[in-house]
């Protein structure tokens, strides 16, 4: 009870909880779930964009895309490390992913169907992710907060690169403009859903707020994202596929239409267009790589034995 009181006081004072500190089991569990889910999203998120590396239409864009996907792998690594400070191993987390117990961001269960998807993922998907993640830089758990500072910095860079790639395409041929519009049409609503269900239907959020893990509500973040994105879409010259989207002078915000939550939950629950492919691709990579990982372990053991022999 004394520990709990000290923990609560630290949270209330906006202080940081560190790995060696005592923390309630529910706090630990919530963080492990959230951080590992975030790590899985980075790793699975390499696939839809990776889909276009071999076909990137210029060497510059190919290099930018490889660098971006590589960064996502790096984010996955920091985040797995952050989760490991809470006493769970990477293998445990990967098992949970591969067995379907752990989730990852549902946005990656949609296919990338044309080259503009890569730009739109940078602009809108990373944009939405940043909105979600910036508040996490002030999260109460130290290692997660610090990982998020680095992640957000790189994600902002990716977002700008994505937007810039779309600007170039919109200045190009009719076919290029059509690609961008097609990609925006397919991704816009899915991005709005990335902020999670409406606050009224999101009971988990309260505890998250209390613990300083979640700082802003789903609906507030969504509104902030829409308000930031509409002017960017205008500059770009694309139409956001929502006839209800218009400025509300009174609210000082953009109004927007109904999100298809049924489709969102279908996808979250495994019935999106690419859920099976994404997961089986990860499982296959893991299984196919087993002999490589085993070799590395075996070699390390042999090295150690040799060192011990020499020392003896």
């Amino acid at each position, binding site marked *: 009870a004394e520990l709990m009181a000290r923990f609560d006081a630290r949270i209330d004072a906006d202080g940081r909880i560190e790995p060696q500190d005592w923390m309630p089991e529910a706090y630990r569990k919530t963080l492990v779930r959230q951080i590992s889910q975030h790590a899985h999203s980075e790793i699975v998120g390499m*696939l839809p964009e990776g889909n276009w590396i*071999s*076909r990137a239409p210029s*060497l510059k864009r*190919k290099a930018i895309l490889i660098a971006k996907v590589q960064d996502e792998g790096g984010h996955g690594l920091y985040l797995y490390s952050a989760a490991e400070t809470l006493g769970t191993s990477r293998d445990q987390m990967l098992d949970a992913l591969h067995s379907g117990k752990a989730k990852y961001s549902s946005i990656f269960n949609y296919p990338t169907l044309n*080259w503009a998807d890569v730009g739109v993922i940078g602009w809108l998907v990373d944009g939405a992710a940043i909105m979600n993640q910036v508040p996490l830089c002030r999260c109460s758990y130290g290692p997660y907060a610090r990982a998020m500072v680095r992640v957000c910095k790189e994600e902002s860079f990716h977002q700008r690169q994505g937007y810039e*790639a779309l600007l170039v395409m919109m200045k190009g041929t009719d076919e290029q403009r059509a690609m961008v519009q097609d990609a925006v049409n397919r991704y816009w609503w899915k991005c709005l859903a990335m902020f999670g269900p409406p606050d009224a239907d999101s009971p988990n959020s309260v505890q998250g707020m209390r613990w300083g893990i979640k700082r802003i509500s789903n609906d507030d973040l969504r509104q902030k994202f829409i308000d930031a994105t509409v002017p960017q879409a205008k500059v770009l010259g694309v139409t956001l596929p929502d006839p209800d989207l218009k400025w509300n002078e009174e609210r000082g915000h953009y109004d927007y239409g109904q999100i298809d939550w049924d489709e969102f939950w279908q996808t979250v629950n495994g019935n999106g267009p690419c859920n099976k492919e994404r997961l089986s691709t990860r499982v296959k990579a893991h299984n*196919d790589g087993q*002999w490589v990982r085993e070799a590395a372990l075996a*070699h390390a053991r042999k090295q150690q034995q040799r060192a011990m022999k020499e020392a003896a």
Partner: protein
Amino acid sequence: MSATANYLLHLADNAVVLGQRNAEWCGHGPAIEEDIALANVSLDLIGQARLLYQQAATELGGDATEDRLAYFRDVPEFRNYTLLELPHHSALVGYAKSDLDYGTTIVRNFLYSALMVLVWERLQQSKDEQLAAIAAKSLKEVRYHLRHSRDWLVRLGDGTDESHARVQAALDHLMPYTQEFWTGSSMEAAAVATGVGVDVAALKSDWDALVDDALQEATLVRPAVGGYVTQGKNGLHSEHLGFLLSEMQGLARAHPNASW
């Protein structure tokens, strides 16, 4: 085409083709660290290719640009070593899909990086100042590629029975393709004559030493080579390059007037 442009294209094609191959692991590696490492190798190679193509475009003049050179030349115009265009598994016709084998990837990266540390080192003294500058930059990168692939060669060779067998098989499969490094070509001779290029044949004993040293540590047997000597650097490729280029170039060629 000038001897220098020809030679730059050889170096650039090597880099872009192996960069394209290494990137195929992205999202499919045996561990996240390896996804990142191979993406990094790929990124370095694409970066080298860009600088080399840019320099070649300057040499060539006209409407040549890095992307025209990478995306709008056909198979017989590519001058890369055949070794670099092979898929990540042992001998199979180009259109027979098969799995990615990490042993093949590591052995190829090792054999090529061991050559290129020597080549870039010498090319720092190229009479072409731009190439000398590219060589200095590339040397740093390829040293990392060599370390990465050599470390894994040793791990796989000295690891488990299975990994030993797999990496030895990859070595047996790929080593004959290294014969192409040492056979002369008019393209290389011309570049050597002007002081722009390096005489690769003269690097063989250094390369042998690098390779033998690593193989010994990896407990692998160096296979005897002989038989057919590939000629990718002269534009005579395997059936694999056509598939690689068709995937790589397709989108760019479908929109020849677009900028990206």
